[in-house]
């Protein structure tokens, strides 16, 4: 039975023309040796490696295009501004936003959630209002809400999950009320890979006229995202998790909300006029982009997205599903290994514990074999507590990973078991 499934997935991959060896050659770092071992990079949920086209684009920007954007009247500044604003349109198209004004460039997912929590919360939250998040959230989608709740007297409600890592939607429905001011949910759990039924959850919230923020940090590199079809009110993601540079991220917000929200930071670029008595602010998106942004990063992000889309999202998904199925079966054959998170709808994360061996010891051992995995609480301490562990080891896969790399992981987990027994 298992062989048949495997064969079927392989043929899907081959028929789609997805050539992982050719793709690996696009990523210079994948040739690296760690000590005596070739790098096996399985920490893609933390950050992805960068294709040469992106590295070249950053090089080109600083070699031939660098200037500050907006208000420059000279050639280079106009060029840089043009490239920066074209990137905004590119990102809007990528996630199917209805208007490029709804795209705000920030430092990453964390800053985007903080912006919404602070600005939206300041404007709309009052004492005893409620914000709904879930037990699956990354600290970046917990702490900003705690901070604004503390300031406004609003309360945080947390959707629980079952032992597989699936959210309890019945409880969620009962939580929604006329006190709810915001639902903020991760699309995919970074720690255990659960894919949440966000479309359904958004519909439920909208029945109460409650806006929904989707944390797309983990979904954007693996799924086609259509914010118009989802009808989410906010969608946030980081560039570096989708083969782009660190330091740049995206906040999509529906225009009707962004217009009502006050600025998050003040400074240059975001003002219309400033006097010592009072300042007036620009329209969106500039209102939320104070100071000089990460210009090369924003331009690089659209280069990374061009690259990502050129591979074909369906082919990427077929390859990644094959890896996840293969990896799940391989790890399950390691005696004493327990995979955390067994949702039917699951993305490319294999989070596990191995007998009573601490994940940090697993991580150090794997590192000595050139294998990079993340170990610890994955910035999801409440989730770890719910799972009854203090930490897990996590292998997170993406489009350039191979079955051979998973085999190396499996073989070394068997060695680790012997070593610590």
């Amino acid at each position, binding site marked *: 039975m298992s062989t048949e499934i495997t064969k079927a997935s392989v043929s899907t991959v081959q028929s789609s023309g997805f050539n992982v060896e050719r793709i690996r050659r696009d990523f210079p770092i994948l040739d690296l040796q760690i000590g005596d071992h070739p790098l096996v990079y399985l920490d893609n949920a933390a950050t992805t490696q960068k294709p040469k086209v992106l590295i070249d684009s950053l090089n080109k920007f600083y070699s031939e295009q660098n200037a500050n954007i907006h208000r420059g009247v000279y050639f280079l500044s106009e060029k840089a501004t043009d490239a920066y604003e074209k990137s905004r349109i590119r990102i809007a198209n990528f996630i199917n936003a209805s208007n490029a004004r709804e795209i705000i460039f920030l430092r990453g997912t964390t800053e985007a959630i903080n912006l919404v929590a602070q600005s939206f919360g300041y404007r709309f939250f009052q004492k005893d209002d409620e914000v709904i998040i879930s037990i699956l959230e990354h600290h970046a989608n917990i702490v900003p809400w705690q901070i604004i709740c503390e300031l406004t007297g609003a309360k945080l409600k947390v959707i629980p999950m079952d032992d597989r890592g699936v959210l309890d939607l019945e409880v969620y429905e009962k939580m929604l009320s006329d006190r709810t001011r915001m639902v903020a949910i991760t699309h995919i759990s970074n720690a255990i890979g659960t894919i949440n039924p966000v479309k359904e959850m958004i519909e439920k919230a909208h029945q109460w006229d409650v806006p929904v923020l989707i944390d797309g940090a983990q979904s954007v590199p693996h799924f086609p995202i259509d914010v118009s079809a989802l009808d989410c009110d906010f969608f946030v993601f980081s560039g570096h998790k989708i083969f782009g540079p660190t330091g740049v991220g995206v906040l999509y917000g529906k225009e009707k909300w962004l217009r009502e929200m006050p600025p998050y930071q003040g400074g240059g670029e975001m003002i219309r006029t400033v006097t010592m008595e009072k300042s007036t602010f620009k329209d969106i998106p500039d209102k939320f982009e104070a100071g000089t942004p990460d210009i090369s990063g924003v331009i690089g992000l659209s280069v990374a997205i061009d690259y990502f889309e050129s591979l074909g999202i369906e082919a990427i998904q077929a390859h990644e599903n094959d890896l996840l199925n293969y990896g799940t079966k391989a790890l399950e054959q390691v005696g004493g290994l327990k995979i955390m998170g067994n949702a039917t709808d699951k993305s490319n994360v294999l989070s596990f514990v191995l007998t009573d*061996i*601490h*994940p*940090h*010891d697993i991580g*150090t*051992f794997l590192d*000595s074999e050139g294998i990079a995995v993340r*170990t*610890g*609480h994955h910035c999801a*301490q409440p989730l*770890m507590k719910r799972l009854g562990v*203090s*930490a897990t080891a996590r292998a997170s896969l993406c489009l350039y990973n191979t079955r051979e790399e998973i085999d190396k992981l499996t073989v070394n987990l068997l060695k680790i078991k012997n*070593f*610590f027994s």
Partner: protein
Amino acid sequence: MNELTELYQEIILDHNKRPRNYRGIDKATHSAEGHNPLCGDEISVSLRLNGDQIEDISFQGEGCAISKASASLMTTLIKGKSLQSAKEKSSVIKQMLTSSEEPDDSLEELGDIIALSGVRRFPVRIKCATLAWHTFEAALNGKKETTTE
């Protein structure tokens, strides 16, 4: 595997598997919780001081092989010692764990705990090894909690 076997010496693996003084203490006079925010590891150290002597010392909690072995070795080293002597050892061992130098011969009298010195080559793991010692000192200083931050 050389650096790895230097880190995970037999003594370490043994103390990880069979931690000594891994229990609570009757009539503890001092105790503290130690927390490593990097990995979420938590240990508690309790001791009973009688006059100037550490009559008993124990630890409990969750941690990796390094932090567990370090705590276990610490208890075996300190139990029965005078307060002054224990404080001196704590200072010498923290120095050994964080120093870029090879441990010199004068440290040999400390016994098995020298096995921890391999951690110096693994900068991200040093805090695992120092957690127990920080927690011990916090307990002596009357602090209820400490972190390796």
